[in-house]
């Protein structure tokens, strides 16, 4: 993993399309930037190394969305939550593969990578969701 690979959101997506979740570890202060960023918000350094983020974590909070934006109307209601991975990093995402009533704060979840979004209104980025571990 060479230093030429930029520490950007686009690069996060490229890793995701290879089934990997990667963050940038600041070489100066050690803070893990996840999603990766080109400038460390803690020490303002631009020197990072890639570090793999565990895909297993637990659910911190969630909601079930009934009134959805245009792009998501056809799949409503759907559950979204914020997951904290085993290293402490966090991401929001949809929760699938479990009935809505069975979702509980604290439940173990694992990230699943998906193919690109197909609706024309959204960029053709790889997607992900969470499912029970």
């Amino acid at each position: 993993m060479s230093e030429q690979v930029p520490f950007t959101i686009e690069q996060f997506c490229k890793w995701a399309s290879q089934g990997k979740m990667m963050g940038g570890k600041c070489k100066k202060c050690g803070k893990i930037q996840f999603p990766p960023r080109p400038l460390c918000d803690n020490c303002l350094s631009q020197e990072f190394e890639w570090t793999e983020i565990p895909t297993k974590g637990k659910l911190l909070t969630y909601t079930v969305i009934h009134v959805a934006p245009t792009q998501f109307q056809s799949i409503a209601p759907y559950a979204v939550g914020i997951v904290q991975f085993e290293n402490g990093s966090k991401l929001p995402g949809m929760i699938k593969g479990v009935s809505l009533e069975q979702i509980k704060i604290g439940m173990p979840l694992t990230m699943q990578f998906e193919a690109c979004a197909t609706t024309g209104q959204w960029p053709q980025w790889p997607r992900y969701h969470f499912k029970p571990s």
Partner: protein
Amino acid sequence: MNGKPLVSIVSAGLSKFGKLEGLYTREIFALAAKEAYDRCPKLDPKKDIKALFVGHMGESYEHQGHTGATVADWAGLLHVPATRTEAACASSGAGLRAGIYAVLSGLCDTVMVGGVEKMTHRSTAEVTEYLAMASDYPFEQWNGITFPGLFALMATAHMNAYGTTEKDLAMVAVKNHYHGSMNPKAQIQKEITLEQALSSRVVAWPLKLYDCSLITDGASCVIITKSELARKYTDTPVHIIGSGQASDTIGLYERESFTSLRAAKIAAKQAYEMAAVKPEDVDLAEVHDCFTIAEIIAYEDLGFCKPGEGAKLVESGETRLGGRIPVNTSGGLKSKGHPVGATGTAQAYEMYLQLTGQADKRQVKDAEIGLAHNLGGSGATAAVHVYRRA
């Protein structure tokens, strides 16, 4: 600073809030500006107003950007320096802060600060999409998270941490609809029952229809001036004695806590210190109840009660008109309505009415100190201002 006025409000205006069919953004703003002009006959708007700051969140609604110049012209202020301030639902709260910068810099003696949004001509799905633009695009919007969804994530976390219930949330709605029933400019001037609120349809669980603010057209403005000049224009100015503004991560998920908003706490601390005022000195507040949970969290962030005790505070009735610290006497975003860009200065308008004794049926007796708390997005912006009767 020590509670001395930073600037003074000499006039204020508010359009009717609601579905203003047939009116464009600029026309709605003109209604608010006209009220402010009429309330302050000693001020010559064309001569005295040296700048305009206008909060406006979304150009998608009307396919119209460049709001500063547009509304300046329609408000009869052609050629004044006019700037749009954008900080999502805190656009005009942040604009008020910008106006204070302008006056305190010495560059302008008197400025108009306002806000406007025209939303109701769009479908709910479109509005939901446009509002979500104030959240993180790559990780929140992209995963289908909406504004009600973000506050629902906070509500679930608050319920889990402190035992707050859906009934507690509904009590905020019942109170604010009661207040709104006394505000002739509110979008919904109707009381609701607890049962009605609890049985309303789910928008983003645990938030239901009556936990959500409204989709609204409306505009608001205040005219602020150097405090030494205030008496030249009016015998009843209202002083702004504290101002705080802070930002936070755009993504809710990046924050340490989902049950408290750091930006609001920082902004409140700044404003309280500048004003030399403590939470217990506040006689009334307008807080950003975009969702019922936001009002409960606001009580805690503003120090009206301890963390986790927001639900108890609403249950106690102390935040209802007649209580120790009435909150959202205007009806709040819940019942008065939430034309997002206009909300910050609409709060200032309520402060102006209350602290000059013009709030009619919803007047808080002997109100001396007021506070307004305006959030942008899921709390990535917060603006807090403290007001004092002159």
